[in-house]
């Protein structure tokens, strides 16, 4: 408990005596960040599938597998953060429906089992059957298990794959919106906290989720192409850049609206939030979230709308803006989760937050949770490489 005594010295003004410790740390920053990446990547995938934006085809499978890899990890920081992780099942057995958090278990399972896994399964079933025939040993057994014994490759059954997969994707879009809008609601519905309590919170969370997911797929597509030593499909990349620009504008507008509204209404909490924004959140809000995460990428992507420079210049700039957006959205989550706990609910003072290195709440663990999805994704790309799908091979031939 030494760190609490240390923090007691750094208290600024008056805070309630129970408020010294921040109850939600870096793990809860990661949770909306990772679920946001899932929702964003999935929405990018459905742009191709449902809205028939065919130029995005090269990233379709990558986006789906990215969403799955991140979704598998999304729940882990959340559960490890609990005081009693082994009681987590209670959220499924006795969900308290008045609570915004209660349906998380169901929303998560629905999205994982019914949407993502099913869509990927329908999409890959034919290839799984064919790969099972071609490979040997453990890989062959893995593919066989993954087909769930449905090995029928008649044209009629394959047509069903397409049809059912499409239905699942259509269901998946509102589900993705639900998953992340709902995460925003967890914060937006806390009336005790003026920094969180906002009707716009779910919308802002959703839009920043789309921004981060699209940026992540863009980044991964470029990295994977480089590793595979294949040429990047520039029309596809430009299209992703276009969508990123569009959603980023929307996100920026709504986040600004939220702040402008707060400033103009200037409620009881205005003074303390003003001090928060200009003090403890100064760098993370204005520099990291605002400048790095929004303004510079907007300028780069907006410039590309006016004038498309050569491929050689575009590629690194897409890479750069994608990474900047990813950093910016991370700090957006940080500013919401950590920022909302730095000021006292007495509106009379601030506590402090120091990110430790080791322990479950330290930044090493946070980095681990952020690296893990990439490892899972690499495994997926090894097991079910999108570029070795038979339909893709036929297309390129």
């Amino acid at each position, binding site marked *: 408990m030494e760190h609490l005594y240390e923090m007691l010295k750094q208290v600024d003004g008056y805070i309630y005596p*129970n408020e010294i410790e921040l109850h939600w740390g870096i793990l809860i920053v990661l949770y909306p960040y990772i679920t946001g990446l899932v929702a964003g990547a999935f929405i990018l995938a459905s742009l191709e599938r449902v809205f028939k934006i065919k130029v995005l085809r090269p990233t379709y499978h990558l986006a789906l597998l990215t969403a799955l890899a991140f979704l598998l990890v999304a729940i882990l920081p959340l559960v490890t953060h609990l005081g009693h992780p082994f009681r987590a099942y209670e959220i499924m057995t006795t969900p308290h429906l*008045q609570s915004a958090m209660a349906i998380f278990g169901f929303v998560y399972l629905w999205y994982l089992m019914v949407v993502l896994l099913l869509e990927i399964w329908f999409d890959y079933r034919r290839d799984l059957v064919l790969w099972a025939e071609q490979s040997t040993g453990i890989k062959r057994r893995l593919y066989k298990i993954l087909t769930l014994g449905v090995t029928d490759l008649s044209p009629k059954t394959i047509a069903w794959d397409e049809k059912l997969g499409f239905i699942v994707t259509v269901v998946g879009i509102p589900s993705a919106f639900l998953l992340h809008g709902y995460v925003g609601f967890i914060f937006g519905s806390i009336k*005790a906290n003026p920094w969180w309590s906002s009707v716009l919170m779910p919308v802002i969370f959703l839009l920043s989720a789309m921004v981060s997911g699209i940026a992540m797929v863009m980044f991964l597509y470029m990295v994977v192409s480089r590793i595979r030593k294949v040429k990047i499909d520039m029309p596809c990349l430009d299209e992703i850049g276009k969508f990123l620009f569009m959603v980023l504008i929307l996100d920026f507008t709504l986040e600004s609206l939220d702040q402008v509204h707060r400033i103009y209404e200037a409620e009881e909490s205005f003074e303390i939030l003003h001090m928060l924004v200009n003090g403890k959140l100064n760098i993370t809000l204005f520099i990291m979230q605002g400048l790095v995460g929004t303004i510079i990428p907007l300028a780069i992507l907006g410039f590309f709308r006016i004038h498309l420079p050569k491929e050689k210049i575009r590629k690194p700039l897409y890479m750069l803006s994608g990474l900047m957006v990813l950093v910016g959205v991370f700090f957006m989550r940080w500013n919401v989760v950590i920022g909302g706990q730095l000021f006292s609910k007495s509106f009379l003072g601030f506590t402090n937050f120091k990110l430790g290195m080791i322990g479950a709440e330290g930044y090493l663990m946070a980095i681990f949770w952020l690296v893990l999805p990439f490892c899972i994704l690499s495994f997926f790309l090894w097991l079910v490489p999108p570029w070795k799908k038979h339909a893709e091979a036929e297309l390129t031939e």
Partner: protein
Amino acid sequence: MGNERLNSSRRNFIRKSALLAGTLVVGSAVKPFQAMLFAANEPEKTMPWYAIGIDIEKCIGCGSCARACKAENDVPKEPFFFRSWVEQYTIKNDGTLAVQSPNGGIDDFVQTVPEAEIFKSFFVPKMCNHCAKSPCVQVCPVGATYESPEGIVLVDEKYCIGCRYCIQACPYGCRYLHPEKQTADKCTLCYHRLKKGLNPACFDVCPTGARIYGDLHDMNSPLHKFLKEHSTQVLKPQLNTGSKLFYNGLSSEVR
């Protein structure tokens, strides 16, 4: 003709029963979501419905309540965990505000503002408001915190998963995470004492009688007298938490 009428009445019957069955199915599917409409139901008047009154004018800031609370409820001794604490507000002549609560009022209050600069100063004892529309109960995802039929907000430490959402949702800062149990913890209005016919510890040890509690159903209780004779106020009324902790002499600076 008759046959036709029979047919049409049978058709009506089928249509009506289909409608009824449909309503039942839809109704039962919607029913669980009724709980999402959040409102406090005051239970029937077979049990007491507890509320608290605190007279700020009588509080001398001795911290007996905070000390007794920690001793009675095995609250960790470190200065970060309180079920009950005392704050001192000092309003200076220039209108600025200084608030302190040294170790929750357990340590001595030392007035740092020079006497000549003080406009007014007073103590505010704080504890759980036992809200009738508790934001903390509303957000618990598993039903580990609840309002008892007596209107007391309790935590089930064997069921709490330690997600700390309730701590975030309490506008009054009355909850903390118990460092050993790793569950949310808060004032129980000494439920174990009430059930034994004793007063809550903080009420028993208050030397000036600044605190009273009582049954809101009982129109003759001292609490009703207190509410009737003083102009009382709750904390943060704009949040509509249904707070049942009523202060006499609450200054507008107190939050």
